[in-house]
């Protein structure tokens, strides 16, 4: 069984949870609303964590004048979705936020020093690098929201998140609005929270490298005994 489900399948799961008559096209008035709730649920959990399967690495070359790279943007629109930005040759230290109490125009040189968030809705460039004259290739990781197409009930693309988390969220919101059976609403809320916690906890299953400079494999020159 696939991990992810189509939006239409998620809608049916929510309808079953709500004791509504399930089936495509059966609920003329609840389906659009359930799609809206599932989409909202996805957006909520999307920002909850940098989910590996929704994150990507990007490498871009700065244009040396605007603090941004030349060419096309990426499918990331706000700095909140960017996990880290590295300057050229930076290996262990990501660039910090532009401090609030600094005049950025007085920062001289061409080495990237700070990151400042921008509205990337139209450009696909959610930040710029100070000094604006900085040059070289920057590397950053960001979570990428799936295309809107995924969230259509007619989509043939799966919604890339754990189905139970989304179904519990949507059913909880729906039944809370209906005002029927508070116990069931409470149950769904608890199940949503437990399932989300479970997902986050499982992210930590791999060993965590406490000091990235001490690599687990021999990727660097070492002196053999």
């Amino acid at each position, binding site marked *: 069984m696939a991990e992810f489900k189509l939006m239409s399948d998620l809608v049916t799961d929510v309808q079953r949870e709500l004791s509504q008559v399930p089936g495509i096209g059966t609920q*003329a008035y609840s389906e659009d609303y359930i799609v809206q709730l599932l989409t909202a649920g996805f957006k909520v959990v999307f920002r909850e964590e940098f989910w590996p399967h929704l994150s990507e690495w990007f490498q871009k070359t700065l244009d040396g004048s605007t603090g941004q790279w030349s060419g096309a943007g990426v499918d990331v629109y706000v700095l909140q979705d960017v996990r880290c930005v590295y300057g050229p040759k930076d290996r262990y230290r990501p660039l910090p936020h532009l401090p609030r109490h600094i005049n950025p125009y007085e920062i001289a040189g061409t080495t990237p020093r700070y990151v400042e968030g921008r509205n990337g809705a139209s450009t696909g460039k959610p930040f710029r690098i100070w000094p604006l004259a900085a040059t070289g290739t920057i590397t950053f990781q960001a979570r990428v929201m799936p295309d809107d197409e995924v969230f259509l009930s007619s989509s043939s693309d799966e919604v890339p998140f754990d189905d139970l988390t989304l179904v519990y969220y949507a059913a909880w919101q729906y039944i809370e609005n209906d005002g029927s059976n508070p116990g069931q609403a409470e149950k769904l809320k608890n199940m949503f929270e437990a399932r989300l916690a479970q997902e986050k906890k499982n992210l930590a299953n791999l060993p965590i490298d406490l000091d990235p400079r001490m690599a687990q494999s021999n990727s660097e020159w070492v002196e053999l005994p």
Partner: protein
Amino acid sequence: MGMNRLVKPIRRHTNAIKTATTREFDGGWNVIDNDLNLDTRFAKTLKNMYRGQDGAIRVRQGNRLFADVGESTIVNVEYFIAVLVVACENGKLFTVNGLGEVTLLFDSAVAASLPGRPAAWGTTVFASFVASKGHLIVLNGIDKPLDISPSLSISYLADPATGSNAFVPRAKYGRQHGDYLVLAGDPLAPSTVYISSKNTSGVFFGAPAPNDGVNVDLSTKVPTGDTTIKGIGRYRDRLIILFAECALVGSLGTYSGSTHVPEFSDPVDLYGAVSHRAIHTFGDDILFTDHVGVQAFTKSIFNTSLKPERVSELVDPEIQKSLSQLTIEALEDRVFAVHNRLEGQYILFIPNDDDNVTETRGFMFTNLRALKIAHWAEIRGWNWRSGCRSQQGRLFFTNGSQIFLMGSEQDPIYADFVGDQETFDDETVFTDGLGFTPVADITDSGLPIAFEWIPPWQDLDKRSNSKLTKFIGFDTSGTATFTVDMFVDNLLTDPSDLGEAFTDDLVFSDDYGFETETPTYTPSLSMSFAGGDRLGFGGDGFGQDFGGNRPSRNEQIYSWPAKGKILKLRFHGETRQPLRIVSYTLGYLEASIRR
């Protein structure tokens, strides 16, 4: 946990959602009361649906082609000893047996074979029947009455002693009452009743003795309006002579010496009749129709006199609307009623035009005293010239030269004109409401019955509070598909609808189009469902492999989100399948008084 902050804390409550089930529909059709203040027992519109004996609102029965006499328009039909006797516009009479086989009963050749070689009936637009002493008398107000014997031999009604019909009046209608045949409607003496000699049918005043026949001119006894007799009725031991605006209640059998002296001493003002064919007596009721609506006489509790009663008060405006389109002659000739003995119904039919009739609008009154049921419904989509009831209680109707049999509970027919017309593949018909004819396959033929039921506005007991409806559910049976619309806050129709435009999309110079009978409704919600007996996925027939619709007998819920202070539902559709709606349930939240 961070997620908690995403949801605004709300006040805890217990089951705030309420449900309201509506399942008493015994009021029937009601156009008198304002539907903003009408009980849900009543319906503002009830077309081709009625409250059945089981309490559910159901689609009416359809009909199927029974026989076709072929050559002339049928003006009236009557059941007589296992056959239907049919009177046609060309003056011919036919019989139709239970197999639908047509046999000529009377024409010029048959007339010529009778003693004296009389002429046959000429062209007639009217005929009426009266059963008398085991015979069936046929009258038309132009020619001399005909007499059909139990062996289905026919002759002119005549004095059996002399064989002469010289004194038999050219009456238009009659009634057997006690030992007497009473005729009236003679165009030369419109206010005279002709009462036969005791225990005879063909012996009238003037014929040789023994003869106590008597003619009574009632014009001097009519207290109100026109003195032309419109019809004759009978109620228990009383003879009722109906005029346009009054009724005379009389009794026969009183003699002064050897002279029969009928008494007409009880006039009832403003209760009259428009058509003899709309007068029906059954049990403790006599129902008849005048210019106001359907009236009844019942027995007074305190004395032996009759008590008049208007039984159609709830739908009188609609009956008056239909009657007002017709001339006096059309009212006399074309308005008729049948009595459905099996379901206790009086069905009144009123044509929509004097000559070019395209529809006879039906007003169905179900009156079951034992069950305390009395309600009205509207019947649409038919164009009948006449109708009758068989001994078994089956109803037959005629249109043109065709005779149709109406379905019954025991032999249901769920479509109209089965065997005569059929639909396109998509179940639609021509714009004039007619289908293809002749049909390719009788079993799959018939036109869908268009039905509509609009209950009144509901405020769910809290008129001033807003209501947020959340779900809807039904108890239904049958397999028909039906659509449910919901309206809120008195927003029923589109006020900007100026009427129907011409085919080139132009309207009249005053910017209005044709007035349409069906307004442009503006539902807040609309959804279609299938009757509770629909099998659904995998079980339905070809073209409905996936179930075809939303089953309406499912205890899971259907979302039904709307907001309003008052709510109204509308059930409608077209079907060739059965449907009964037993109840509907709304789940809702009660909100504040602010809309």
